[in-house]
């Protein structure tokens, strides 16, 4: 059973629909005990870092995510979920979960023709292998919608990057945690492959 963390952040049903399509048992839940008892956890999110953190704290989901991480449960962060696993975000100058040490700055680009948010399909370049990337080609494209990007303090946690005037991290990984800035649930067959790989990953 995959627990999808419910903290009213964006359209959680998109993730659910993709898992249903793949025939993967899942539940959308705000219950900390269901999350710490799940086989796997998906931590999605769209929206503002500050309001997301507020709702997580209200529901004591911050502790649940820390506990799940400490217990070795495989966790997949998506989009805002990936940003707020770091310690801070520039968005609303927000103190975040700190599962990984790091910061989320906003894009500051010099080319006026490059739009912010960074919306659309971009090539993802792998720095290292990971079980969730099994069968996915180097430089395959994934769907992004975001204005901030995740920068872990330890560069060893960067699994993949993309380029938008600057090169920035788009997949982070440490131990049983893997997190994507893009939306695998909206990235066609490659995104579904990543979700399917995650459902088989033991977190090691």
């Amino acid at each position: 059973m995959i627990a999808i963390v419910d903290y009213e952040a964006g359209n959680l049903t998109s993730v659910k629909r993709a898992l249903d399509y793949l025939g993967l048992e899942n539940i959308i839940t705000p219950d900390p005990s269901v999350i710490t008892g799940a086989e796997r956890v998906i931590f999605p999110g769209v929206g503002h870092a500050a309001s997301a953190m507020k709702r997580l704290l209200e529901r004591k989901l911050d502790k649940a995510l820390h506990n799940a991480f400490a217990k070795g449960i495989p966790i997949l962060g998506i989009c805002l979920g990936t940003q707020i696993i770091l310690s801070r975000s520039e968005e609303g100058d927000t103190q975040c979960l700190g599962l990984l040490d790091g910061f989320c700055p906003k894009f500051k680009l010099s080319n006026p023709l490059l739009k912010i948010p960074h919306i659309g399909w971009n090539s993802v370049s792998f720095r290292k292998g990971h079980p969730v990337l099994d069968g996915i080609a180097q430089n395959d494209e994934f769907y992004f919608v975001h204005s901030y990007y995740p920068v872990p303090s330890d560069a060893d946690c960067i699994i993949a990057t993309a380029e938008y005037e600057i090169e920035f991290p788009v997949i982070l990984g440490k131990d049983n945690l893997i997190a994507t800035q893009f939306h695998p649930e909206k990235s066609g067959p490659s995104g579904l492959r990543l979700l399917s790989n995650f459902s088989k990953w033991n977190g090691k």
Partner: protein
Amino acid sequence: MLSKRIISCLDVRDGKLAKSVKFVNTVDSGDPVVTAKKYYDEGIDELVFYDITASSDNRNIMIDVVSRVASTIFIPFSVGGGLRTVKDCTKVRMAGAEKINVNTAAVANPSLISEASLALGAQAVVLSMDVLKTGVSAKIPSGYEIVTHGGRNKTGLDAIEWAKTGEHLGAGELVVNSIDADGTKEGYEINLTRMIAQAVTIPVIASGGGGKPEHLYDVLTEGHADAALVASMLHYGEYTIREIKEYLHTRGIKIRRT
């Protein structure tokens, strides 16, 4: 680097495709979900479903279509047509659409853009604008005017000003549909698209006039569009998505190939 997007638009009436979509050697079922799946399998980057159902009694049929699409294809898609209130927009979003698309209702009531943006996030709000070349005047300094009802009703709004207003109110993307170019298959309105793309900082999707892959190349380069909408060139089987994408790729446009 970010790829340019190819987006296809499907008109839906009472839950069925409004215009027959013809493919070589296949029977058109009239089911928008079947066509969406076919385009998804061929590598379309995004889809737009435009509900042209006349009777409000049949609006719930569209919600069912949206929900079936969301369970079948796993790329972003937006839904427009008949969305007049934030409640309408939220309903479509909850049914699984990534984005909502407002046009005439936003001209009549611009606060719909800001309210929808606040409720769903700017990334979920697409402002579609129908534009007609009416000539430069004191009221229309760009020479391009916002129109409704297929060009029959002029609004007195300058297209560039309306684009900026839309961005300011919280739209996350703009569809710039040239009524002059629409249906001509002679190419997108490059000048208009470029003027708007340079006036705003949000992505611009060019619409109307696409008849050949060269037209997409022109609007994605000279027109500075971030994406191009294609309809009849795909629906009538004149080109496949792969052919269009291969063409753009060979001409050096960054495009997602599957």
